[in-house]
């Protein structure tokens, strides 16, 4: 398998079914957002058609979409930042410091992620009710950071342990503090891990439904609850749902495009040393 051109071709060929499988439903959702419901079910299936904007118009006029979009964005960005900061610190702590119950505590971190959310939502609701945090950004943000954190911690442990100790020690001899080492040496090397943790923390908050439903009402309602509302007892409003889903997808794509340049080799050891 030496000749790279052959390998490139094979790779390309292998990707075709993968892309069809992955993208077809996305195309179908996007197409549905520009179609009438009748056209969505047309036989033979319609691949090319004259797009209509009615679905978008209805979503934007029937519900205060942008208010909910703002809620979703603020909470998701907050969740991402919160879980990154706490996750980086704790992940580094676990990766570099051992204490007696280290393993057990780490497993306990994972256990908090295993409980069905349906079970946690009622006590959490009562807790937030006591604290007066129902229907607030804070109430949801705190919940979502706790959802995202176990994965962030565990994932970042895996990336931090790959950072060679001697590089860190050299920096500390040069007078760098622990936190300084983490920020200047460890984080750049483990950047792909942080990117993945960020993307998933964002998505946890962005797509979460149950807590958003129960904890929010008017002020802090997020988009998944609104979109679920388009799945009515008289059936889904396919066009409107798809239009909303497409609009909801866009911020994710923008964020991923912005982050993906850190998702590469390059910030490897050599680069840091040099």
């Amino acid at each position: 398998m030496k000749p790279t051109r052959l390998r490139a071709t094979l790779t390309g060929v292998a990707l075709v079914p993968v892309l069809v499988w992955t993208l077809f439903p996305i195309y179908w959702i996007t197409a549905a957002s520009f179609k009438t419901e009748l056209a969505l079910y047309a036989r033979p299936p319609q691949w090319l058609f004259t797009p209509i904007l009615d679905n978008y118009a209805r979503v934007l006029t029937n519900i205060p979409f942008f208010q909910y979009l703002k809620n979703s964005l603020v909470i998701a960005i907050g969740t991402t930042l919160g879980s990154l900061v706490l996750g980086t610190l704790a992940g580094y702590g676990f990766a570099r410091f051992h204490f007696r119950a280290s393993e057990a505590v780490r497993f306990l971190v994972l256990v908090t992620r295993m409980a069905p959310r349906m079970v946690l939502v009622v006590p959490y609701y009562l807790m937030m009710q006591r604290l007066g945090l129902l229907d607030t950004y804070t109430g949801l943000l705190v919940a979502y950071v706790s959802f995202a954190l176990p994965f962030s911690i565990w994932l970042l442990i895996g990336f931090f342990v790959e950072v060679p100790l001697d590089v860190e020690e050299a920096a500390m001899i040069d007078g760098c503090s622990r936190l300084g080492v983490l920020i200047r040496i460890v984080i750049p090397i483990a950047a792909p891990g942080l990117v993945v943790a960020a993307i998933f923390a964002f998505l946890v908050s962005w797509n979460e439904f149950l807590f958003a439903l129960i904890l929010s009402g008017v002020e802090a309602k997020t988009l998944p609850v609104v979109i679920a509302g388009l799945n009515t007892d008289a059936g889904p409003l396919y066009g409107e749902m798809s239009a909303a889903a497409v609009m909801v997808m866009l911020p994710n794509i923008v964020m991923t495009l912005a982050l993906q340049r850190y998702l590469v080799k390059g910030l490897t050891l050599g680069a840091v040393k040099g």
Partner: protein
Amino acid sequence: MRISRNVRYLAVAVLVVLAIASGSDAPASAQAKTITLSMLAGYKEDVLRANLPEFEKKTGIKVVVDAAPFGDLYKKQLLSLSTGGRYDVLFMDEPWIPPLSEFLLPLNERMKTLDTADFIPTTVASGAFQGTQYAVPVDPNVQLLVYRKDLFEQKGLKPPTTWDELLADAKALHDPAKQQYGIAITASSDIQTALYMLLAMWSYGAELVDGGKGSLNSAAGKKGGEVFLELLKYTPPNVKSYNFADVNKAIQLGQAAMAIQWASGAKPMEDKQRSSVAGKLGYAQVPKAVRQTPMRGVWTVGIAKNSANQDAAWQFATWLSGREFGQAAVTFPSATSAIHSPRFSVLKDPATKAALPYADALLVSLQITKERPRLREYADIQENLRVTAGKLTAGELTLEAALKEIDAGTNRILGK
């Protein structure tokens, strides 16, 4: 250092987010004249939102809408009410009235100020439990028979009035080779399956609960069940995965000659963007056997017992069930939005008949409709019915075993 600058940006960003977050923590309902409404999201919410400014202008009362999807609305209302929650007014499906009655304000005195003569009587009953009125009807729903006028004419058939005629017509119009099926109903583990089955059993005289006990396992129940299973021979081949929307699709895309469907599904059938048979449909009462029992499902509005704004809430409830809103709702220009009206004056209005081809069928059916058992435990009983009907149609149980299991479940829930 580049990286530490990034950290500083990060810190600033965190602070900004926290500031925005805490800024919105202030309660929105500080003013006296604001009421919070728990509403069904989606295709009824839009009608309400479009008309709400009118009410707010007229009364000076601001209505804050908390809309939740159908599948979660009851849960959210129950959780909120039982933990001293924050709703003033609630939009509720009628089976929820008995279990939620505990937390609702009795309205008997206030009802006297309402022009109740204009309401179809059965719809008013949907808001009552054990002699007390807890809610006012807003949006009545009932099962209808939908049929293709053109196909019936072609074959020289008359719309069926009995289950035997329905079976005969379904058979006559069933032509799988042409992807033309006699009737669309569901035979899945969807709730609609249980309700179709119950409808047939009711028609033959069976009761889900009688004398405080499960009593579907009777000759009448068995007969109704047989008719229901017989119908499945003339449906699209995969009704075992169908739900409410699929029944609508089968009609809208011209595949089914008939359907039994709730009135709330009828509006999209008449929309050219969604239906290839718009204008070709006829609507009638569901078929009968020993009696005619179209099932009732009315959306009602009630007031929380612990509401601090009961008078404003009542003003809103009367407006929502009033003639003005009803008329605006039935003629609301959207194919997917459906709020009907429980008032004779609205349903008989020429403008309504022009907007809703099924207005007459709705009006007649609502007057002869049958209600599901009014019990606190009904939601559990219906859930047991749903699961068992799903097992029956999937072939996991025979009809005899299913009927026994339904009654056993009902008795267990009722503590018998």
